[in-house]
């Protein structure tokens, strides 16, 4: 791969990306436009995250890539292999070992620590997009904190369903200012955004936007005083492999007679619990 620079992108492009990232860190929750490049994977498949990761990577980094919480889903494998090939960095499946974690749709169960960077892949960065399709208008709404319409949408949910019917990509308010789309993570993960010890970066390649949550940023999920936000998941279930009742669970259909089981979506978390249990059993 000697025809390509370290981590694929040329240095001028990385500099442009780092400027956008710095601006994003300086204005938490604000969507910074950047000139997104074509990447060797399609738009919508993590190009934003890949560009942010490429701009952050140094040779000493250890990279973890997850999709749906798992290290072995096809797209996570593909992106991890890409960086192994173009940056030759160490890779890992263990959350605690990684210096950079690129993720799609989940935040790891293991709490992140200072110095770690969590990079989210974002399909639609604009939380107001489905209320107002025009970029020109949504940018003005953000600039003027004109967020009544967002709250109306939540009001409508309660009026119709008795609760805020948003299961993922649940909008948040950052430091009491910008409303932000946390990417399509389940709302179960929303509390992990708040006051995180790690730097959280969000990259939307097709839409050309980068935004950020610096460490220890206040992140509140939108709600009503009398209908407070709750981080929910499959009720009353435990992981069939490690027995966890506190992690986010995927449902797996086991036969065609309606049989199913629940397992941790975070494969590293689950595997490390299983390993610890078998050690205990051995001891």
């Amino acid at each position, binding site marked *: 791969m000697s025809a390509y620079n370290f981590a694929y992108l040329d240095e001028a492009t990385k500099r442009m990306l780092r400027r956008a990232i710095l601006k994003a860190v300086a204005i938490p929750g604000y969507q910074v436009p950047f000139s997104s490049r074509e990447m060797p994977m399609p738009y919508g498949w993590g190009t934003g995250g890949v560009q942010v990761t490429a701009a952050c990577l140094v040779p000493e980094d250890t990279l973890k890539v997850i999709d749906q919480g798992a290290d072995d889903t096809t797209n996570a494998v593909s992106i991890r292999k890409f960086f192994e090939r173009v940056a030759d960095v160490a890779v890992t499946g263990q959350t605690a070992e990684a210096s950079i974690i690129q993720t799609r749709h989940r935040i790891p169960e293991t709490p992140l620590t200072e110095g770690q960077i969590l990079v989210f892949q974002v399909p639609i960065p604009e939380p107001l997009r489905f209320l107002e399709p025009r970029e020109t208008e949504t940018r*003005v709404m953000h*600039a*003027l*904190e*004109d*967020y*009544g*319409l967002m*709250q*109306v949408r939540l*009001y*409508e949910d*309660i*009026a*119709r369903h008795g609760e805020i019917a948003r299961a993922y990509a649940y909008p948040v308010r950052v430091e009491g200012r910008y409303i932000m789309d946390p990417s399509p993570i389940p709302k179960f993960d929303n509390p992990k955004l708040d006051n995180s010890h790690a730097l959280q970066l969000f990259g939307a390649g097709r839409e050309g936007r980068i935004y950020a949550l610096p460490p220890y940023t206040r992140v509140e999920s939108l*709600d*009503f*005083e*009398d*209908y407070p936000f709750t981080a929910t998941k499959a009720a009353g279930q435990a992981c069939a492999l490690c027995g966890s009742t506190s992690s986010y669970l995927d449902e797996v259909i086991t036969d065609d007679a309606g049989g199913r089981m629940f397992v941790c979506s975070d494969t590293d978390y689950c595997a490390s619990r299983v390993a610890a249990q078998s050690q205990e059993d051995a001891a």
Partner: protein
Amino acid sequence: MTPLLQVEGLSKHYGNFLGCGDVSFTLWPGEVMGIVGESGSGKSTLLNCLAGHLTPDAGRVLFDTREQGLRDTLAMAESERRWLARTDWAFVHQNPRDGLRMNVSAGGNVGERLMAVGARHYGNIRSQATDWLDRVEIDTGRIDDRPRAFSGGMQQRLQIARNLVTGPRLVFMDEPTGGLDVSVQARLLDLMRGLVRRLGLSAVIVTHDLAVVRLLADRLMVMKDGRVVEDGLTDQVLDDPQHAYTQLLVSSVLQV
């Protein structure tokens, strides 16, 4: 007493065409000003300039703000003007579709302005919405219905409720009874008269319907070809029109 709204030398051109020219007037708190004229007379242009929807070429629009007294709204930052538009001002469009969110429930429509200024208690928002639906004579059982399912008159009443819920100090109305059947108009006018009197609303109402101003307006301006040709107390202007155009206007409609 400080005027609520003071307009000085307001002009707006479209190319070489005069939208409205050199309009000045003062609106005092609790007063309703009617602006009449036929279509193309510039009355809607004037209203849209006052409300900040159009940028005039010249002139000032001074509004008595809560914190700083009289300020030129044209010189304000966009953010300040938008804040005014969702707090102290209200705008009732001729076509309720322009003023309502058609895919949001009646309750959500009324609640939007409350939420825009920070209301975050669902129960309170809902009870205020219920109260306002009741005040504009909409069955409160329809709070979760979308305005699409409402008749034209109901839509217009909903638009009024949505505008008045935050207790605006100044209401702009653009042909509020236009496009409605005569019987529906009468009911709406009756309701509006009640609200204006009870709430002591200050308003600028643009209409081509002299019945509307006869019932609602304290004072009247008559516009033709972008200019104000006559103004005065409503009864005075309508009963003893001075300008030839006003005479024509008054004689061409049935007296109320």
